[in-house]
């Protein structure tokens, strides 16, 4: 029957039975607890009443009687005793009221009936006490205490004790009944609990068995199949999930067996194809690209076809590679030669870069010098501006001076002209003297020659003639000197005149030029100011140029390092080209080991 139920239902049953048992036990326990609670409340109420009764007894037995005895013994005054009695009375009545109020509703009437007479009696006793105290007769009081009052008090105490005993008995009975009731509930709970537990265990056993048995069968079936028994089946029947699982497992195993059989057959065929394929690949591994793999219809067919295509393409590619390797080898040799040329060019560029860097460095230093020079020129320009201003003043003074000079020169020219006229007169006189001296010389010569021709007689005359000739020659020489001096003077005078005129002209020109110079100096001053500005800008620009040249120098150094790096890289490239050439040659050799189709 359980097999007809689904596993969730069975599990639900497995949980529901113990839960039901637990619920029953719980309800029973709850009932017992409620009863115990009610009993406890009752018991608590009765205890409270007992406390009230005790309080009443103590009030009567201790406070009232103590006050009365005090009065009797005259240890307590009547007023104090009255006060004590009043307080005791109120306490007693409050206790009594509390006793009555503390009784449950169902027995309040009985409680009231039980305690009311006691309260009345106490009230009467208190009245008598009060009356007695009011009389203030000690003997009477003493006598009443030992007589009727005492007896009444004892009787009231006895009543109270009875009520207390009654209450205690009722409480005892309540405890006993509660104890008995609790034991009954306990037994009932125990029975119900064990019954529920047994039922739950029973249900659990059967439900668990209904689940674990088919599961064990499924496990055994799977283990058998794993061990190799492909015929193992679970053959579970039922309508639950496990039965469905078992049926599915059996079906799966059936399909699996069929599939394995088909796979086995396919593997066999595939194995044969693979062997053929391996043979062909073996031949290919021996670098024989002329081999062709037979193409079958199985899964190796595409592989064989692919291998054939691979071999064909590989052969074609290797042929291309061989051709390309040849070209690469030749091209690499060309590249190598070109790389060597580039390396040489890079080396020369490096040296040129070095030279350029040096020249840039030198140029930077020169620019620096130029900057300093520009700065110096700036200072000089400023000084020139100052000098220009003073030059303006100087030119103005020069102009005035040149005017004065012109006048002086003109006056001098006139005097020189007069001097020239005088020298001209002197020259004429010198010519006359020269002529006279010349004639005298001729005469002296003739006289000398005549005296020499006269022999001894003319000797004296010859001497005189020689002396006269000498004198005339000296005169001629002097006249000549004078003439030359005069001529020189005339020449110099003429030159001086010319010079004076030139000087006048130059003075005039100079004046004009001084005026122009003054104007130009004014312009120059402006230009100098502008020049100072320009020089200042040049100085600044030179400084910038110097800084720029320093930057260029640094960049040149960077370029140099770059050129150096380029040279190194070119050298490396050259080496790599050589390696490439070697690799191409090796590649060619490697390709040639393959047997290619014609």
């Amino acid at each position: 029957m359980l097999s007809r139920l689904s596993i969730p239902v069975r599990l639900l049953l497995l949980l529901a039975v113990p839960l039901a048992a637990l619920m029953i036990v719980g309800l029973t326990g709850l009932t017992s607890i409620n009863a115990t609670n009610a009993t406890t409340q009752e018991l608590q109420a009765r205890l409270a009443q007992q406390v009230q009764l005790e309080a009443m007894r103590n009030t009567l037995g201790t406070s009232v009687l103590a006050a009365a005895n005090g009065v009797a013994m005259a240890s307590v005054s009547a007023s104090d005793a009255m006060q004590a009695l009043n307080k005791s009375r109120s306490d007693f009545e409050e206790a009594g009221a509390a006793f009555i109020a503390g009784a449950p509703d169902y027995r309040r009437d009985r409680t009231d009936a039980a305690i009311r007479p006691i309260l009345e009696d106490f009230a009467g006793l208190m009245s008598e006490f009060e009356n007695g105290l009011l009389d203030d007769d000690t003997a009477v009081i003493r006598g009443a205490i030992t007589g009727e009052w005492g007896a009444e008090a004892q009787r009231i105490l006895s009543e109270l004790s009875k009520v207390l005993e009654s209450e205690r008995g009722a409480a005892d009975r309540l405890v006993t009944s509660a104890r008995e009731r609790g034991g009954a509930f306990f037994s009932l709970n125990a029975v119900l609990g064990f019954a529920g537990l047994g039922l739950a265990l029973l249900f659990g056993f059967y439900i668990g068995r209904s689940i674990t048995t088919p599961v064990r069968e499924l496990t055994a079936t799977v283990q058998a199949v794993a061990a190799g028994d492909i015929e193992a089946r679970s053959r579970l029947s039922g309508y639950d999930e496990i039965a469905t699982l078992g049926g599915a497992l059996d079906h799966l195993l059936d399909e699996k067996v069929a599939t394995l059989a088909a796979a086995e057959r396919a593997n066999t065929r595939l194995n044969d194809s693979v062997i053929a394929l391996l043979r062909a690949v073996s031949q290919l591994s021996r670098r024989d690209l002329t081999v062709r793999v037979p193409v079958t219809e199985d899964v190796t067919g595409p592989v064989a076809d692919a291998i054939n295509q691979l071999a064909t393409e590989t052969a074609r590619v290797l042929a291309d590679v061989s051709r390309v390797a040849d070209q690469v080898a030749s091209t690499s040799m060309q590249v190598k030669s070109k790389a060597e040329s580039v390396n040489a060019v890079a080396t020369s560029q490096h040296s040129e870069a070095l030279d350029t860097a040096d020249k840039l460095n030198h140029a930077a230093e020169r620019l620096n010098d130029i900057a300093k020079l520009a700065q110096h020129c700036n200072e000089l320009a400023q000084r020139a501006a100052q000098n220009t201003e003073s030059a303006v003043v100087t030119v103005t003074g020069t102009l005035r001076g040149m005017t004065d000079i012109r006048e002086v020169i003109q006056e001098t020219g006139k005097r020189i002209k007069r001097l020239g006229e005088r020298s001209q007169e002197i020259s004429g006189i010198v010519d006359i003297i020269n002529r006279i001296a010349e004639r005298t010389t001729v005469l002296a010569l003739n006289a000398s020659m005549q005296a020499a021709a006269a022999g001894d007689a003319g000797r004296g005359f010859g001497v005189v003639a020689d002396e006269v000739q000498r004198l005339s020659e000296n005169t001629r020489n002097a006249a000549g000197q004078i003439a030359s001096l005069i001529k020189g003077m005339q020449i110099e005078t003429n030159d001086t005149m010319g010079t004076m005129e030139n000087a006048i002209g130059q003075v005039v020109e100079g004046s004009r030029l001084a005026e122009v110079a003054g104007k130009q100096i004014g312009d120059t001053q402006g230009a100098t100011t502008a020049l100072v500005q320009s020089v200042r800008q040049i100085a600044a620009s030179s400084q910038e140029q110097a800084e720029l040249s320093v930057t260029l120098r640094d960049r040149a150094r960077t370029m140099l390092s770059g050129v150096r790096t380029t040279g190194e890289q070119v050298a490396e490239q050259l080496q790599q080209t050589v390696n490439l050439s070697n690799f191409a040659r090796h590649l060619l050799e490697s390709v040639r080991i393959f047997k290619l189709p014609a």
Partner: protein
Amino acid sequence: MKAVDALARRFERVDGDAARERRKAERRFRGLRVGNLGLLVAHDCSGELIEDAQVHPLPGAPPWCRGLINLRGRLLPAFDLHEPLGLTRFRAQRQWWLALGTGDDAFAFPIDALPVSLVADESAAVEVTVVPQSVRPHTPASYRIGGELWLEFRHRDFIRALCASSGPCS
């Protein structure tokens, strides 16, 4: 002593015999400039300096014979020595003619500078090779005086030879 006697007396040098001997070795000349040649004639040769002489040409005379000069009634032949000596005449402001000799030997020739008195001794004698061929035979000696070259010139012999070479002209 009268002044004339004093003037006629020979001067006596202080250095005495040495000076006398030196004076004996010295020869006095008159230096003449003809072209660029310096010619020396005897100091005691009679002569006269003529300024701007008027020369009367002779027809048919050789080129070097310029003509005749009337010197106070004396007719002197005027010979231009520049032509036969191959010399260049200096263009002077005045043309000086020098008449040498007396009597029939006298002749005049143009000079390019006034005559000067020169003294030469053996120490001034030099050997000169660059001398015009026409005058070489008539220059027995040559001297270097004052840094200038002077040739001793026998003018009479030269004129005679010149006239002899040119035909009757004496």
